[in-house]
Structure formats: C-alpha cells, structure tokens
C-alpha cells in the first residue's frame, strides 16, 4: 500500500518550509534513512530522510515550491509493482464511525462543540485533542496534554524532547515562554500582511522584485514581534579596551605556532566571555518574561548574531561562563564557519539566554539592537577607536568602544540594566577575571 512522505517539522519554530531540491527521482528505489529531499527551513537548509523503504512513486510538490506547510504530503512512496495513485492517500483514520460512537455524537449537538466556553471546557478541549490525535497520533505525556489544554497550546506544533521524541511537560512550558514556537497559526497578526500589490508600493519607480527566503520571512516576523511586543529601553556605556587588547596580545603570543594546542583568541571571544562573567555576577538579567512568572536560567548560554548571505542566525556558546577563552574561541570559529555554510543543527541556534551583536569590525560608532525573544537583553557592540579621555584632569588617549544594552523593561528595570553595564565595563577594563 502506498504511503505519503510528509513535509517534516525540522525545528520547533518551523510551520512551513521551502522544498529546495529533490535528491531522488520518480521511480527510484528508496530505503529507510536515504536522503530524499532538501528543505529550507526558517534557519537553515536541512535534509529529509525517508522513514520507510519503497519506490518514489510520485512527487507532489515540485522543487522550489515555497511555504509548504508542515505535514503536507510532498510525495507518494509505493511498494515495488504497485500502481502509483494520482493523489496522496488520506491520513490514516479509523474506519467509518462504528455504530457505538454514533449515539455519543448525537448526544453532543454539533453546534455546541465550537462554543466550548464555561463549564466542561476541559472536557471539550480533551475531546478535541483526542479527535486530533486520531488524525495523526501525537506522542505526549498525560501531564503535557493537560497543561497544553489548560493553556490553549496546540501540541501538534511542538517538538518533543522526551524519550523517542515524546512531548513532555518541559516542552509545553517552553512553548508558553516562547510564543513564536507555539503559534501554529499563520503569523498574520504581527507581520505586515503579505503585499500583493507591488505597484502600490513601487509606483512608477523602475524596480524589480526578489522573492523573500523563508529565513527573511522569519526574521521579519520575529523582529516585528519583538519590537512591537517587548517594551525596549537602552543603556549605553563607553568601555576602555586597552587592557583587554594587551591581554589578548599576550595570550595569543603564548600560543604555539600551530598544532593541536594552538589558538587565536579574538576580541569577540573575550567579549562573549566578559558578558558571561557579567551575567554570572548580575544573574537577574539572565531571564525571560513569561506572564505570571519570570524564568531565571541556571545556565548562561550566549547567542551571537552572525550575518550570513541571506540574513542572520544566532549560534549559541552554551555555558560560556564555564568555558575558557580557548574553548570559546574554538567553538565560535566552528559555529561561525558552519553557520555560513548553513550546516548548523537546530539545537545549536535555538535557545540561548542572552545575545550579543557585534558590529565593531564594521566601524560603527554605536547602535541599538532588537531583543531576541524570549531573552530579556541583547548587547550591541560598536567599534573600538582611539578617543581622548580625561583621567585625573588630564586628557589622554585610550581605545574606547561604545556598547548599548537593550533590555526588556517588563523584567529588567533601569537600575539593574545600569548595574549590568557598569559591571561589564569593569570586567572588560580589568580583564584578568576572564581567565578565572
């Protein structure tokens, strides 16, 4: 019997993706584990593996098709010698309702089903959840199901982190603090509606149009959401870099020329570590706002904004406060390389508790960054430059950079943000604490 190959959800935030390329042709044999297609998700290009073996009977979604919803049949797999159906087989549903279920259905008039407010809401939600489960079985713990129904979260939009991909409580709880991850509905509410009428925008001005990539659309959606729902405010401070630069020179001079122990630490590596050390000292910034609660993270995982050809991505240096500069340096180099090649795995760029955006190498004097939800803060780092500074009444020259911390005012108040930047400055200006 034929089976459908469905558009997979390759990351928790993925609701649709672009079918980039087919790697198997119609009529070609496929065994379980073979890569059959490449999908461009919101963050990266990923491979689709076949779960069953058989013959690729029919391709339903052609290469280059944009915005294919998760779980849409993209191809039909048949067994050898089997006739290829034109249309995908319907999702596995139980046979037509047996007589026993009919009276139950009759007892609940269809019209009352959607208006499931007031008493019995839990019952209705549970019944609906079961109805959904019949279409495509969702593996979730009973507790995860109950919390999801109480909070109105659609389980089918979640990825399970439990045994064998089962959805467990932490997945549902995470979804409640990462609204982006749980919203299965198209993001029409927070994103400017897809523009149909190009003429209304461009008018007579000569122009051409370029289709936006999936990543570009996600960036648009998430940043619109962040900037319109998070009350941002900004705290700026000038930091002297000379001591840090001197330490860097000294450290790099101590590295063997090449071989296994060699390293080359960048200023960015040191600033990642400095931010992590600062967060350890001022942990109340390492949080997420979550409605009735604030989530305090036990680990310090730094997301660093990396620009890539078609947008940007934020790979994560996890537990950066526990890592040496050498470890951070090796890790960032590897992450950046793979980010630019589109080879990051979802867990390497999803999560993080604090972000850094560094435009120092581009010579900017200062800038403010948009918070990367559900985090509560992002540090914007500008270029270090020789500036006159006044010390003990004398003007001297120092290498100074301006950093700007953007914070979510729902969880971080002014005094706390000010404390954070002041500790950050002291860590950078007394950089030996980066070696502890």
């Amino acid at each position: 019997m034929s089976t459908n190959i469905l558009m997979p959800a390759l990351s928790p935030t993925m609701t649709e993706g672009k079918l980039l390329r087919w790697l198997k042709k119609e009529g070609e044999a496929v065994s379980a584990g073979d890569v059959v297609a490449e999908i461009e998700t919101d963050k990266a290009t990923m491979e689709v593996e076949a779960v069953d073996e058989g013959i690729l009977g029919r391709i339903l979604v052609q290469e280059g098709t944009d915005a294919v919803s998760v779980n849409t049949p993209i191809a039909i797999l048949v067994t050898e010698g089997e006739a290829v159906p034109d249309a995908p087989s319907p999702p596995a549903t139980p046979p037509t309702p047996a007589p026993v279920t009919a009276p139950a259905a009759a007892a609940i008039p269809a019209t009352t089903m959607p208006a499931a407010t007031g008493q019995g809401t839990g019952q209705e939600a549970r019944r609906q959840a079961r109805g959904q489960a019949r279409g495509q079985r969702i593996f979730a713990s009973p507790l995860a199901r109950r919390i999801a129904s109480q909070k109105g979260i659609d389980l089918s939009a979640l990825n399970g982190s439990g045994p064998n991909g089962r959805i467990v409580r932490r997945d549902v709880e995470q979804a409640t603090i990462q609204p982006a991850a749980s919203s299965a509905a198209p993001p029409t509410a927070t994103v400017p509606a897809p523009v149909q009428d190009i003429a209304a925008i461009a008018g007579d001005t000569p122009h051409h149009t370029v289709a936006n990539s999936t990543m570009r659309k996600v960036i648009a959606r998430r940043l619109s959401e962040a900037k319109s729902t998070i009350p941002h405010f900004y705290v700026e401070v000038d930091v002297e870099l000379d001591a840090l630069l001197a330490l860097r020179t000294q450290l790099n001079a101590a590295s063997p020329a090449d071989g296994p122990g060699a390293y080359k630490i960048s200023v960015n590596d040191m600033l990642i570590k400095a931010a992590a050390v600062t967060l350890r000292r001022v942990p109340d910034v390492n949080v997420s706002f979550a409605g009735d609660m604030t989530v305090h993270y036990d680990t310090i995982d730094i997301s660093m904004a990396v620009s890539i050809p078609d947008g940007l991505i934020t790979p994560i240096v996890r537990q950066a406060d526990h890592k040496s500069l050498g470890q951070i340096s090796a890790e960032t180099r590897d992450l950046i390389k793979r980010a630019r090649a589109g080879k990051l795995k979802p867990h390497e760029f999803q999560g993080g508790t604090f972000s850094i955006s560094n435009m120092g190498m581009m010579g900017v004097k200062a800038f403010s960054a948009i918070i990367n939800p559900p985090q509560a803060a992002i540090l914007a780092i500008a270029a270090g430059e020789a500036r006159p500074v006044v010390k003990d009444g004398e003007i001297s020259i120092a290498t100074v950079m301006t950093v700007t911390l953007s914070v979510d005012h729902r969880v971080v108040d002014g005094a706390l943000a000010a404390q954070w930047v002041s500790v950050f400055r002291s860590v950078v200006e007394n950089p030996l604490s980066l070696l502890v």
Partner: protein
Amino acid sequence: MSTSQFDIIIIGGGPGGYVSAIRAGQLGLKVAVVEAAHLGGICLNWGCIPTKALLRASEINHLLHNLGEFGFAADNVRFDLEKVVKRSRAVSAQLSAGVGHLLKKNKVTVINGFGRLDGREGDKRRVSVTPAKGGEAISLAAPHVIIATGARARVLPGLEPDQKLIWSYREAMVPTTLPKRLVVIGSGAIGIEFASFYRNMGSEVTIVEVAGRILPVEDEEISGLARKAFEKQGMQILTGAKIVSVSKGAETVTLKIEAGGKTHDMTVDRVISAVGIVGNVENIGLEGTAIEVDRTHIKVDPYCRTAEKGIYAIGDIAGPPWLAHKASHEGVMCAEMIAGRDVHPMDPLNIPGCTYCRPQVASVGMTEARAKDAGYKIRVGRFPFVGNGKAIAMGEPEGLVKTIFDAQTGELLGAHMIGAEVTEMIQGYVIARTSELTDGELKETVFPHPTISEAMHEAVLAAYDGALHF
C-alpha cells in the same frame, strides 16, 4: 613504560562506576574500571546489600518472638550472631563476584588499584594507577574519564570510630557480640536501619538526632509515624539533641546529651556514628585541573560534566542524593552521552528514597511542606493500612500512604509511604512521575486485589473524590 589506550576510564567500581562500565561496554566502547578495594563498592560490600541481609535476619527474629498472633508457639528461640553476620558477608561476596563476571562479559578491563588523574597525553586524559598488589604504577589514557570514587562516613570530633566502642557503619555490620545498650547518632537512612536491626535483635536502642525529627528528609507526617512506631518497639528517641560530652571507659561509653531542655546521662556498650558522608576527593589528581570541589563534592552540570572537558563525575562524589540508584542512573546516562546517544538529565524529584527499617519508609518527589513552599495549590490524599485487606491478613496493619497532587494540573508532586513492603511498591509512583501521569491515569489504573498496593490507589482517590475503603 607504555600507556594502555581506552575510550573511557572509570575511577571507582561501585554502583556508579561498574554500571557505567557495563553500559559503555554494551555500546561497544573500550572501557577500563579502576577499583582500589572491592567491585560493587560500598553499596554491595559494606552498605545497601549486606545491611538488607542483616535486616532480614532481624525481621525473622521479630516474627519468631511474635508467633502467638498467628497461632504458633515456639520455645527457646535463639540465634547465632556469628552465623547471621556470616550470611550477610556471603551475600556480599556472591554479588561482588557476580559484578566481576558481568564486567568480563562486557569486555571491560578491571584494574585493581588506586587511580588518579595524571595530566594529558595529547588530546587524551591520563590516569595513573598504583596497583593494589604493589609494584610499578600503571598508566592509562582515554578521551573520557568518569570519576566515581564515592564517599565515606563523616567523622565527628570525639566520635572517631575506634573499632571497639565507637562504630562506623563498617564495624556495626560485623558485630561479634550483641551490645545490650546502644546509642545511634544520626537518624538518616543508615542510622535508622542500624537502630532497627539492633532493636529487633534485642538491644536497647537510643537514637540521637540533631534535627527536630528523625528521617529529616522525609515528609514530616511520615517522620512522626516512624517515631511513634519505633517508640512503641521500645526505642528511645532524642531529637533536637546535642552531644555535650563523650567519655570512654574500658567496656562502656558514657554520654551526656541535651535534648528538649533536659540533660540525659547514659552509659552504653556501643555507639554507632551515622552522621552523613564526605566525598572521596583526596589524592585523585583534582589539583591543577579546572574541576571545582564544593565541600568534598565535585561540581557537575546536569549531564555530570565537570568544568574540565572530557572529565565527568557521578554518584556520591557528584552530590546528593547519596543513593546507589542515582549513581547507577548517572553512570548509564554518562556512558550513553559519551557514545553519542541522546540523553536526558535526571530529575532529582524522580529519584525514590527507601529506608528498610521496620516499618519501612519510601518516598518520591516533594514533601507536603516543600510543595506548599514552592507555591503549589495542593490536594493531599491519605490512606492507612488499616483499611487494606491484605495488610490486615498479613498482620501488618500499621502504615500510611500519602499522595500530594498539584490541584491545577493533576501532577503527582510527591508520594510518601510507611509500612510493610513499601520499598517494593514505591516504583509504581516513580513510574507515574517519570511518565508524567496525572490523577486521571492513576485513578483509572486497575490494581490487583488483594495487595497492599491497593492502598496506593486508594491514596490517589482520597486526594480527589474520596477513598472507597476508608
């Protein structure tokens, strides 16, 4: 001298180390276990297992003195302490040999000696071993090292074990004579089990506890019931107690203890000190590494990773709870993680705790007080053994099962039990917690009749619509 190469080196062959080694062997890794004393560690040789053999003997002694209830009579009931101890040692020896066979079957190299971290060899970690038989040090190297060196009894000043009058767990496990009068200092699981053993063998037992109640980590209500049961058996229990002085005579020890505003002077034959443990962090080469030690325990992340890449710590050395099954679970998780499997950190609230005194105590998850402190709105269910047919038929009518649910989500936050066989039953609630079952599934579960486990079902019902048989 050449260095032997492995995928993983495990320092310590207790329930953390040897189980980790078996799992790593199953996953095709080349493993070495370095053990200084016995395979199976304290648990199997001087802890969990031999004490269960002793406690079993003491339960039999208790039963033989209470035959009348069942319609039996026996005169001249005696026991031979030497044989009781010998059986306990034989049980340990049998199981320790069994561990050796299991390791061999899984192609694990066992090295009998004292291992310590000894720097690097290229990308790998080196471990040097001083052989137990003497001779030259052996050098091993592997990209991954698991430290599983366990812990030992904490020693209080003035109560240093002397192998005669003041005992640690080790001497208490191999008595040559039964002390007539005994003081047990500390009422955690170890102290309480020895108190129970000696009391059921006929000693006069006093328990001295610095905290306000015995079994201080258990739910307060269960602590209270345990105290009542022990006092009914004739034990004296002093809580909130402070030892003012200890003086040793030739054959006796005199103690002055302050408790509840009164001073107790007592002269006893033996004192057992069971006041917690300290980690074995000395001489294992932690100096000069980034590994952090906090009050004799190695700091690790939820995946048992230390601050030094490629070095892990599991079991007692890596922090509480000090339980063999926690060590084993961490060992398996570590081995699977090193083999590249997808692993989940252990939730401390899903680790059961058991004390094998009479009556037994077992629990998992939060106590009632902790659930309240954490801000939960809770539902509590209680069901006493006196409402359970099997318990009455067995002559074990004293006991209680207590459940604590989150009123909002129906999550089983904690379960606490005291009574016969509860240590064998608690896993039912552990499965419920680990699988994230709610009150709904537990209510719908069919429990076999007649079993004491029906009390577990009833305690769930009691938290909601009401128990059926009480």
